[in-house]
């Protein structure tokens, strides 16, 4: 089994009020020097079987048509090594 991670972020030109609200809270919490925060979504897909080129292509299609709305969001797809779980 393998894990594929799809990260979805609002396009850079689109206002992210959630990220801004987080950023504005930072000085109050004692975190200085962070000039911008943007908030996104992370999807972790557990994939049965090998993550070969065909499987990745299907996940890419899934991300493009459903997980992200490409009118307003960008996305990246990456395969994550899953540490061999203790059996």
């Amino acid at each position: 089994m393998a894990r594929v991670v799809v990260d979805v972020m609002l396009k850079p030109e689109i206002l992210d009020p959630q990220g801004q609200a987080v950023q504005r809270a930072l000085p109050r919490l004692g975190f200085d020097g962070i000039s911008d925060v943007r908030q996104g979504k992370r999807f972790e897909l557990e994939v049965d079987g090998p993550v070969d080129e065909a499987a990745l292509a299907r996940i890419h299609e899934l991300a493009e048509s459903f997980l992200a709305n490409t009118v307003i969001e960008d996305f990246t797809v990456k395969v994550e090594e899953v540490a061999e779980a203790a059996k």
Partner: protein
Amino acid sequence: MTARIGVVTFPGSLDDRDTQRAIRLAGAEPVALWHKDKDLKQVDAVVLPGGFSYGDYLRAGAISRFSPVMETVIEQAKAGLPVLGICNGFQILTEAHLLPGGMLGNDHLHFICRDQKLRVENAETAWTSDYTAGQEIRIPLKNMDGRYVADERTLDMLEAEGRVVFRYVDFNPNGSLRDIAGITNEAGNVVGLMPHPEHAVESLIGTGRTDGLPFFTSILKKLVNA
């Protein structure tokens, strides 16, 4: 025979019954449609009502857009079927790419509910012919994800083609770009807007005005004259 106007109920729809009632008050026959059915029961037009279909999980309207009923709605809308999306329905129409741009969370991050003033910019769509261009109306608005966004090129195109149908007046309730409250597709048969005309159709209820009724009489007139 009177015009039959379908109203889709998705899991999480809230305003389907109000919409059916508005259609009945306008003199047409409301037809309940179910999100799992591909069949549109030979209706002459479809309304996607407000609410929080599929809980707005993922993004508002994103999951409904793939429901069986939407397969048929998308296909027929492209062929000219009049479709009105109100609030969540507007979100579904952008997710389905029947209307350009997208809907995001309000810029102030809060749910908002108010009596909203709008200007009718385009009185030539299937759903707005009983208004006059430039007319100002007040209908209720209630949303969490009402911020209309699109890239500059798309916004310029919408303005140039007269496809901004409604604009917020005096107060922009959600940060929508260029105060856009509603838009139409190129053919004028598909219209989406965030405020709720179906909540302002009876003088005894709610705002006391009937500023929303012309939506439903517009479409009725168009269908009867067609």
